């Protein structure tokens, strides 16, 4: 039985655990039909030209990991940003872990999707925002069909959330292969500000396929800073589908740090529904082995006087493959748009590959749009210079790579996140040096 078939035949079992008479379930069922029709994406689709899911779709995934596993905080503490106080919404094998979490309903809601989807008091928000901007494509539909659990964050207007919110999905590997469909909804009202850190982490070498959908609504003059840390085991694959709708004068930034995993696909979509919006998309990818990271971004400029800034850096070693597919659409009403896109890559090994498709579709004439894409190597002269001054070649390389990636780190606003990423980079590059000179 192939995976699609297995998923389809599991849907009845899934229905056992949810209220099938709810409006939500109608949305699920429609999405289910859509997935049934579309199936998994193949390389024949232009959007998946450079990323094949074939190898990971062969696994025999358990679709409902049912045993509730507990884990010791000590064992997983390293995956938290633990040196600052944060709200935490933690899941183990797709189930909420109250033990590891720290949620709140005190003026803001940082809690569970399962509550939000079922309790009456959340109904107005869910009706307004759930599954409204998520694209109805194959994998998003799959997630919607099985949407039941995830993080629910609602920040009322004029609220400055005083500490960041961490969302972590752990997989314990009790099953040989686990498939997860986390569903997050983040609603940030007028003039509110929130910082979110998201991570997916498997704790064993067993295969994991996470197909996560996150919808973010940023109302007028709100600010959302989103950090995605992807440093998973080589057996864990991730398809991250994030959809962000922005209203006037909002600023939303998403930083994606991809340092590990098997196949990682980031579908990051921004829809600008007002004026004077700023959308910031940044990423650092450092991978090796046979890892594959695909950044697939879309910024849709619909209204005038908005900006978008994309900056993606990639370093690829051994047989790793990087993909950058960045699309900017400027509608004809979106005059005075400033859209910038930058994608710079370094291939470290003979066997590594980068495929880039930076794409502009412009229908307005009074705009400034540019994209730049480079693929190159580290500067040999600089390396030699450093070596001559006594710096080891490994360290010299690491320094240059850090410098290369640094423009992305500059805009990280939480110092502890920045420190963590810096350490992860040092770790990745196998050096023991501080970069923050």
């Amino acid at each position, binding site marked *: 039985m192939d995976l699609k078939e297995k998923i389809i035949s599991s849907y009845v079992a899934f229905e056992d655990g949810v209220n099938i008479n709810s409006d939500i379930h109608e949305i699920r069922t429609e999405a289910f039909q859509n997935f049934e029709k579309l199936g998994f994406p193949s390389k024949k689709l232009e959007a998946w030209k450079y990323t094949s899911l074939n190898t990971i779709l062969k696994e025999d995934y358990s679709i409902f990991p049912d045993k509730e596993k507990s884990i010791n905080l000590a064992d997983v503490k390293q995956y938290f940003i633990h040196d600052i106080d944060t709200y935490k919404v933690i899941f183990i094998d797709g189930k909420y872990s109250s033990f590891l979490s720290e949620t709140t309903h005190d003026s803001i809601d940082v809690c569970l999707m399962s509550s939000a989807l079922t309790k009456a008091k959340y109904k107005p928000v869910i009706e307004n925002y759930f599954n409204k901007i998520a694209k109805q494509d194959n994998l998003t539909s799959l997630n919607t069909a099985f949407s039941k659990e995830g993080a629910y964050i609602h920040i009322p207007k004029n609220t400055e959330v005083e500490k960041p919110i961490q969302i972590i999905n752990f997989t314990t590997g009790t099953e040989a292969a686990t498939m997860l469909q986390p569903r997050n909804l983040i609603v940030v009202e007028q003039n509110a500000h929130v910082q979110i850190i998201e991570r997916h982490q498997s704790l064993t070498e067993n295969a994991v396929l996470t197909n996560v959908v996150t919808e973010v609504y940023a109302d007028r003059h709100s600010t959302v800073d989103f950090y995605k840390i992807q440093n998973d085991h080589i057996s864990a694959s991730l398809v991250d589908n994030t959809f962000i709708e922005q209203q006037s004068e909002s600023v939303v930034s998403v930083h994606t740090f991809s340092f590990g995993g098997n196949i990682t696909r980031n579908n990051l979509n921004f829809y600008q529904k007002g004026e004077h919006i700023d959308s910031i998309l940044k990423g650092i990818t450092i991978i090796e082995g046979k890892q594959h990271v695909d950044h697939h971004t879309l910024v849709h400029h619909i209204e005038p006087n908005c900006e978008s800034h994309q900056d993606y850096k990639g370093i690829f070693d051994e047989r790793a493959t990087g993909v950058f597919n960045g699309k900017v659409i400027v509608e004809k009403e979106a005059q005075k748009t400033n859209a910038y896109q930058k994608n710079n890559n370094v291939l470290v090994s003979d066997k590594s590959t980068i495929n*880039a498709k930076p794409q*502009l579709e412009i*229908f307005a*004439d009074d*705009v*400034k749009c540019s*994209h730049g*894409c*480079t693929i*190159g190597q580290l500067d040999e002269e600089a390396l030699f210079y450093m070596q001559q001054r006594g710096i080891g070649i490994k360290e010299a390389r690491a320094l240059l790579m850090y410098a290369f990636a640094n423009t992305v780190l500059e805009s990280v606003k939480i110092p502890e996140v920045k420190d963590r990423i810096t350490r992860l980079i040092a770790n990745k590059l196998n050096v023991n040096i501080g970069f923050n000179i």
Partner: protein
Amino acid sequence: MSKYTEDDLREELETKEYEYGFYTDIESETFAKGLNEDVVRAISKKKNEPKWMTDWRLEAFRVWSKMEEPEWANVSYKKPEFQEIAYYSAPKQKPKLNNIDEVDPDLLATFEKLGISLEEQKRLANVAVDIVVDSVSVATTFKKTLGEKGIIFMPISEAIQEHPELVKKYLGTVVPTSDNFYAALNSAVFSDGSFCYIPKGVRCPMELSTYFRINEGGTGQFERTLVVADKGSFVSYLEGCTAPSRDENQLHAAVVELIALDDAEIKYSTVQNWYPGNNEGKGGVYNFVTKRGLCETNAKISWTQVETGSAITWKYPSCILKGNNSVGEFYSIAVTNNYQQADTGTKMIHLGKNTKSTIISKGISAGKSQNSYRGLVQINSRAENARNFSQCDSLLMGNKCGAHTFPYIEVKNKTAQVEHEATTSKIGEEQLFYCNQRGIDTEKAIALIVNGFSKEVLNKLPMEFAVEAQKLLEISLEGSVG
């Protein structure tokens, strides 16, 4: 007084008629419409072709019959009805001409109207011209001068007769019959085109030129060009195209193959102003062209194109950089106006070591047109030290058109250095005011700015063409203001 604004310009562009839209009444012989194996055989027979050539065409036809018309380009149009096209149309005339005076005087008058008087060209421009009207080459000038150097420049139909060994050796080696839908169609039905061979170490002393013109209504033009530059040789080749204005869409599906052997260089320049359709988007040429060059060791191929015409353009002059140290270049200006749609760009396939490619693409969109750049830079794993630089700039005039960039970059070698840049801009109010302040009116100012925008490409054209190209840019975008 009323000020000449960009809006006025836009309006004028929309009402601007096609300057080359006239029809020459030459008696011509046209096949009945439709395509099947018999038509392919008949074309081959008409041209008195050897069996290998007939078989080659038939094979291509069979491949084509199984193919589907591609849909991936960013253009939308009513698909040609392939059974409604006549696949052969030749002006009736004596089969062979040795002297230009033997050419039908009406035809010569046509060329005069086009501003390419053969006589003038012969005397002044030092350009050897092969003219393809509809499907047949009608005159090749300068044959003798070229013959002394061993250069072969003749209609490909003649080359099949006179130099079968060369044609057989190279035809279809760069663009195989099965390459794509239109290339397969062309391979099956091409009726003429140009063949050019430059012997070892010879520098072709003059620009070689082909002029294409679709004259007959309801015909397709499928010419085939094959240029072979033997080791250490050099040739500069020019191609110009026009078509009369007609309401129905005319199909043009050409194939151009370039082969640059070791140390050879081919410079291929095109100025294309096929009829773009009227200002409501009716009529115009469908231009579906496959152009590709193969570079052996140390060879260089450089494509330069100025595209102002055609209703639909689908064209990606490409270079396969097979040999070490080979160089590929692509310089392009594509202007679209009214309802024109262009999806054009290039592919640079780096296979050899130290290969280098440069892509400079300038797109100018006006009216309700859509202008897309689509390009592929592929650095294969054995292509050590490959270099590519790409720059795609778009200039938008007005708010009803679109500019799109679809660059594909695929790199499998760590020593590669690839740089891609793209910008989109419009003509700034500040620039116009600055020019106005110096006494330059808005229309002239736009011409000046567009010219500046296109400069890097215009500079790559041979002198004779650069002037024509500049004029074409002005015609396509400006018209005269009273």
